[in-house]
């Protein structure tokens, strides 16, 4: 085939430019550590990167939620533990008060301590969380759950709402318990239901006036049982959160591995390629120089 001088020049320069462009591509890959720089270089992989990045960010959010849920449950649990202790002491006092040999003064002393414990229990039931919301008023975080509106009258002002937090795409964990379930909705030995505060108040009043009290021990036990079962439930929730956190953790590791395999550069391969391309470019440049220096005019 006949070759024109211009064509020879163009082909030589063209091949040098081609090599430079692939060299620059490799150089950019090495500089960024990525296999591809724009979606067009690998459309399906870049979509996967987008989607998996999104999953990663959601999973991290679930971890944050889980930490938040754990801390809420921990503070609820510690308050319920304190309430349990209080009730335990009230139970002891109740047992003492049933001793028929007690005198008026002694009964009065027990009643005084009962009043104190009652106030303590009320305070615990009206606890606030770190951000100043009442823990036990259901959804009504700004409403004080229990008020002593008249002697012996204890009103629950909250609702039965239970806040939940999302800890996985499909899993919501309750992070609160309404005061109504903890302290109010308790079967009463005298029939129906009665809140624990009224039970203690009645006991104290009876002790002061010397009237006999009914099966108050049973009522206190019911209340303690309720507390224990809710605390057991809280423990269960915390366990679930822990295991969900582990699952999320594993998923995060998996996603990061997947993302890395999709988008991260194989350095060994890329450096090998870079060397090959450098050699190719050098060869192209040298052959260009050699061929260009040949001309018949040099010999005329």
């Amino acid at each position: 085939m006949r070759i024109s001088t211009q064509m020879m020049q163009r082909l030589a320069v063209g091949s040098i430019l081609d090599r430079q462009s692939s060299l620059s591509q490799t150089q950019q890959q090495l500089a960024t550590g990525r296999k591809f720089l724009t979606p067009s270089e690998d459309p399906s992989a870049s979509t996967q990167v987008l989607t998996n990045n999104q999953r990663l960010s959601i999973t991290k959010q679930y971890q944050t939620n889980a930490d938040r849920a754990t801390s809420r449950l921990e503070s609820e649990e510690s308050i319920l533990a304190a309430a349990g202790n209080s009730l335990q002491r009230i139970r002891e006092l109740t047992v003492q008060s049933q001793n028929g040999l007690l005198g008026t003064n002694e009964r009065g002393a027990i009643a005084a301590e009962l009043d104190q414990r009652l106030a303590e229990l009320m305070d615990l039931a009206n606890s606030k969380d770190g951000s100043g919301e009442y823990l036990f008023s259901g959804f009504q975080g700004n409403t004080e759950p229990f008020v002593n509106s008249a002697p012996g009258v204890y009103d629950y002002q909250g609702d039965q709402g239970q806040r939940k937090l999302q800890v996985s795409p499909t899993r919501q964990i309750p992070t609160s318990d309404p005061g109504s379930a903890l302290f109010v909705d308790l079967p009463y030995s005298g029939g129906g239901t009665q809140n624990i505060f009224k039970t203690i108040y009645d006991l104290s009043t009876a002790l002061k006036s010397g009237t006999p009290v009914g099966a108050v021990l049973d009522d206190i036990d019911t209340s303690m049982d309720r507390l224990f079962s809710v605390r057991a439930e809280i423990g269960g929730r915390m366990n679930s959160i822990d295991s969900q956190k582990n699952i999320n953790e594993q998923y995060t590791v998996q996603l990061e591995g997947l993302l890395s395999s999709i988008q991260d550069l194989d350095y060994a391969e890329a450096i090998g390629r870079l060397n090959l391309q450098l050699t190719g470019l050098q060869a192209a440049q040298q052959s260009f120089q050699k061929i260009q220096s040949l001309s018949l005019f040099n010999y005329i």
Partner: protein
Amino acid sequence: MASGMLGVGISGLLAYQRSLQTVSHNIANANTEGYSRQRVDLGTQLPNRVGTSFIGNGVTITGVTRIYDSFLTDQVRTYTSSYNQSDIYAQQSSMIDELLADPQVGLMPTMEGFFSSVQGVSNDPSSIPARQALVTQAETMVDRFKYLDRRYEDIRSQVNQQISGTVAEINGLAKAIGDINREIVLSPGGSPPNDLLDSRDILLNKLSERVSVTTLMQDNGAIDVFIGKGQTLVLNFDANKLATTQNKYDISQLEISIDNGFGGKLEISDYVSGGKLGGLLDFRKNVLTPAQNSLGALAIGLSETFNAQHKLGQDLNGVLGTDFFKTSPLQVLPGKGSPSTVAATLVDAKQLTNDDYTLRFDGGNNYTMIRSSDKQVFAINTGGASPYTTATMDGFNLTISAGAAVGDSYLIRPGKTGASLIDLNITNAREVAAGTPIQAQKSIGNLGTGTISAGNVTNTATLPLGGGGITLTYNTGNIMVSGATPASVPYVNGGKILLNDPGNGTGIEFSISGIPTNGDVFTIGDNIKGVGDNRNALLLGKLQTQRMLGGGNASYDEFYGGMVAEVGIKTNQARVTNESQLRLKDQAVNARDALSGVNLDEEAANLVKFQQAYQAASQIIVATNTMFQSLLAALRG
């Protein structure tokens, strides 16, 4: 005798002088673009008859020809057109590709931020800072939608500018071709004006870089040029003018028109192909518009679905949620002269596509809507009603009023303005509807073990419930309802109960589980003071992972990912095509150059050859002189 020899010598001198000049011309033009090497064709002069023999009379120049093959030149032109088309297409697509890929300016980080702050609100529903963070993140996301849309609009106006510029260049080239036609046709002498022909080929090639053309060689040597579907661009010495005109529907979009020969203009955008112009039109139609529509459809879909859930919630002031976002209306552009009698309304964001639709009034009660991408036809018959609302098509319906004349047409672009017109509707952080407007309670004192779920609202028409709300009383296998419809429902342990259903499966939803005792009471009331309620925030957060768009097949991020992939695939294809077109063009240029290009070594050899021949011819003159001198000497002798 001697004069004959002298004549032969001179003819040789002249012939080789011309040959040497042509070789020099070739050498001088070795690097001239589009130059075809030339060759002096030599022939013998008519011989003299001497007796029975013929005596040669020397050499004569029969012509100077350019080494040229019109087929190879045509090939170069064709591939130049395709190459330039794919080149600009790939270039422009890359701009969008890179825009979407950039993690700093892409939409994804802002969507993540937005939904992450929804979770923030659900973690702490009464916290004003958490709510404020959500409002701020929503603003950031809205801004990003607008920013990306503005970039699309920038690219669109750049395309307009490039179209105008290219059209001006085409007009210039067409005029130059007409002028050069004149010079070629009117050039004197029998030999072709080689260099003018080369120049015209170069002009035609430049024209092909801009738009695909077909040519027709006339007997007089002029070349006529046609574009589109045979519209004349150059006829003999005269050039027709291309012009940019406003799109019939969208005046901000430039189209290509040509004088139709009767003083009017004919729009030929749909017929123009190849070259930069064809590439720009293709890019606008196949990449830019769908990408912009997709972004808009995402903005509309996200804002509408988020709004729908938000409106089922209750804000910190205890009132029902409002629209969280302002959503763009669906764009309908009446064609030039058509009355504005058509409006499009979103019905189901899930089904919205990135397509354009044209609607035509066919007369009577008949309209035809055609989807651009696949030419799917939707026949519409208004039955004479005005206004008439159509069935839902691709997620929207049309409201058509009377007033259109036969042939009136409309362009419907549901997604076009979605990203530019999205806005935040709520202004105050307290308006974030994190709670649910109802709350379900179990009466203290119930004897059974029945519990009621927190409840969910799917229709707020009967809210707030007010007064005593809804009371549910268990009575031997039935739940008796007061304050809502229906009056009673059979009790199914854990089964879903739906109250106040207007007939479309929405209302107030909840379930009762366990074993209730006769007379056990449950109540559902308005959610008063429920500042710590995060039920709706949880539902809003879950939208992020649900398949809310793309016909129910894609979550928001998957929809966006699909759009990025689509642009990526198109850009990738454009690059691959561009590379193969480049190879084809190079091959064609090489084939042409192999024949027509100058090879300096060859010219060097020719230079030596013709120099030697010239020197030899000079020797003939010397020999003639010597012979003449000998003769004179003999005579003097």
